[in-house]
């Protein structure tokens, strides 16, 4: 398949009419089961703790559950985290013909971020993007890395889609956020790089890293599920198209009730892993972990 054919195929997949419907009762059942399971898990969280899940955390729990204990919530900015935020803004500029090429667009986005950061610091009159202050503090060698990573990322997304065929694409946009009802301190956050309307339902495009793995249905289903929760069945995304630019792979997940249910089960399993890890971390902090107390030969605490 030539590149042009590959781009055409991906675009066809994104704009094709929806073939699967999600019934209001089916969606309500998925959501109700999810709320029940998450409330039960949330109740096990150490007191005062709150669990915010995103696609990275869901996949980490599935692929490397052992790493959840050592993975904190502290956010550390890096070029790889920043490239997506800058990259989608740059692609948006290119698609709307405000910039001629990703290299130019990225430079403009970064320059605007610097200006916003300078104004925000002094006056609070504007809200700078999250990366702007961090980027402003980097020396030129560090800034060059950020810019280079964002250009490469933006070029991959810009080259993956036949943009004129996408009607009013939302590139980047706000992330979806769903708070589990009741007292459960569990929040699901999802995001897609591009949204386009197919009839009344959105279709999502997700840009993934590395190569497509066996759990790609979870990787694509998660942003679809979060976008569906709390919404009317007619507004549930009809599909999620995933592209892995580094490997050239593309997958399409049609979101019907079964796909939503399977994704919800995977999310519950991931949340359970994270809750367990939080409990273990707390036990270790208070010296209640395995082996933290002296034990006599018969197994009774000495």
């Amino acid at each position: 398949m030539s590149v042009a054919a590959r781009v055409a195929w991906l675009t066809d997949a994104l704009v094709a009419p929806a073939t699967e419907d999600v019934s209001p009762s089916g969606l309500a059942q998925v959501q109700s089961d999810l709320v029940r399971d998450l409330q039960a898990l949330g109740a096990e969280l150490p007191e005062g703790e709150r669990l915010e899940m995103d696609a990275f955390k869901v996949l980490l729990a599935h692929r490397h559950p052992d790493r959840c204990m050592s993975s904190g919530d502290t956010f550390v900015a890096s070029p790889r985290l920043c490239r997506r935020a800058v990259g989608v803004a740059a692609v948006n500029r290119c698609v709307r013909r405000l910039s001629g090429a990703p290299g130019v667009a990225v430079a403009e986005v970064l320059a605007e971020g610097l200006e916003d950061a300078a104004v925000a610091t002094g006056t609070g009159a504007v809200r700078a993007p999250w990366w702007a202050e961090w980027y402003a503090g980097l020396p030129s060698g560090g800034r060059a890395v950020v810019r280079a990573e964002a250009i490469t990322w933006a070029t991959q997304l810009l080259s993956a889609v036949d943009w004129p065929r996408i009607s009013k694409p939302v590139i980047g946009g706000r992330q979806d956020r769903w708070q589990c009802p009741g007292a459960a301190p569990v929040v699901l956050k999802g995001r897609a790089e591009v949204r386009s309307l197919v009839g009344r339902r959105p279709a999502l495009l997700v840009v993934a890293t590395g190569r497509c793995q066996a759990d790609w249905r979870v990787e694509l289903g998660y942003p679809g599920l979060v976008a569906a929760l709390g919404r009317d069945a007619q507004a549930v995304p009809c599909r999620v198209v995933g592209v892995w630019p580094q490997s050239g792979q593309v997958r399409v997940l049609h979101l019907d009730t079964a796909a939503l249910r399977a994704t919800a089960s995977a999310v519950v399993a991931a949340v359970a892993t994270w809750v367990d890890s939080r409990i273990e971390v707390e036990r270790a902090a208070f010296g209640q972990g395995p082996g933290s107390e002296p034990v006599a030969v018969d197994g009774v605490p000495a």
Partner: protein
Amino acid sequence: MRLGARAGVLERDGLLRRLRGDGAARPAVDPGLAGGLRDWLEDGLVESVAALPGDGEVVRVNKESLNQVLVCEAHLVASRRAPRVGTVELARGSMVDALFRQWVTTGVIDDPWVDALAAFDVEGDRDGVVAFVAGLSPALRGRLMTEVADHAANIVDRWPVPSPAWLPRTQERLEVPLCGGRVVLAGVVDLMLGSPAQDRASVCLVELKSGARRLEHRGDLHFYALLEALRSGAPPFRIATYYSGTGELDAEPVGEDTLVSALSRSLDGAIRLCRVAAGTEPARHPNPLCAWCAGLPGCAPGQRRVGTDVPLASAPRAETDPGSA
């Protein structure tokens, strides 16, 4: 010090002409080629993958592992077991790579030493370059600073800053999973130019080398051409190695013969890497690198070739390691 564009327009034009192929027609993309190459690789790997342990461990095939395993399987195993040792040449290579990326992206290099170290600081210094250079004696560090500055000056003098319209992207990662992901061909290309191919090949790959010309550099480049063909469905139309120390540019077109020979070499290496991953006793092939092999003390064929059981790797590697680029 701030390095900016200055004289050397002819050199820059010449370099661009060679990257563009001097106006030669770009080959048509064969839509069935990539699928055929992939089938060929997967068919050749079926038995090797079947013999892998069932733990799901992925066999990664990159330019380093390919070069090592094709020289000697035992050498590869010994290299993996030995602690990674920094060398001045490796540090220089990493720093010049960072500066090349900065130049291509921004068209400005302020202070080569400071800029390169800043790049590692923000990117995460996986190779430990910052700690390595901090531990160097003042004399060696001074020598390295001079070398890095020379390479940076050469890049600034001889490399044009690519037009954004050519879609230059740096350090682009390529990953090609085969056989259900049990084998992954992987690489990071220093510079890619050109929009993705439609009917005709349109991408040019450039690898930067700060060391001397070596035979395996062509093999590395051909491997990357194969990866790009498999990933995007179209091979690059041109591949090039740029030597930042001398300004030499080795550029060549990519024909089907290039891809087939790269495939043959990659398949051979991948089969050997699968053998090693399956726990098979690594084959020993005495070769000119035996004297530097960390496994020499336990390798009779290697000792016979070298005439000693003491690897040169135990000497200060910064001055002796020939394996850096």
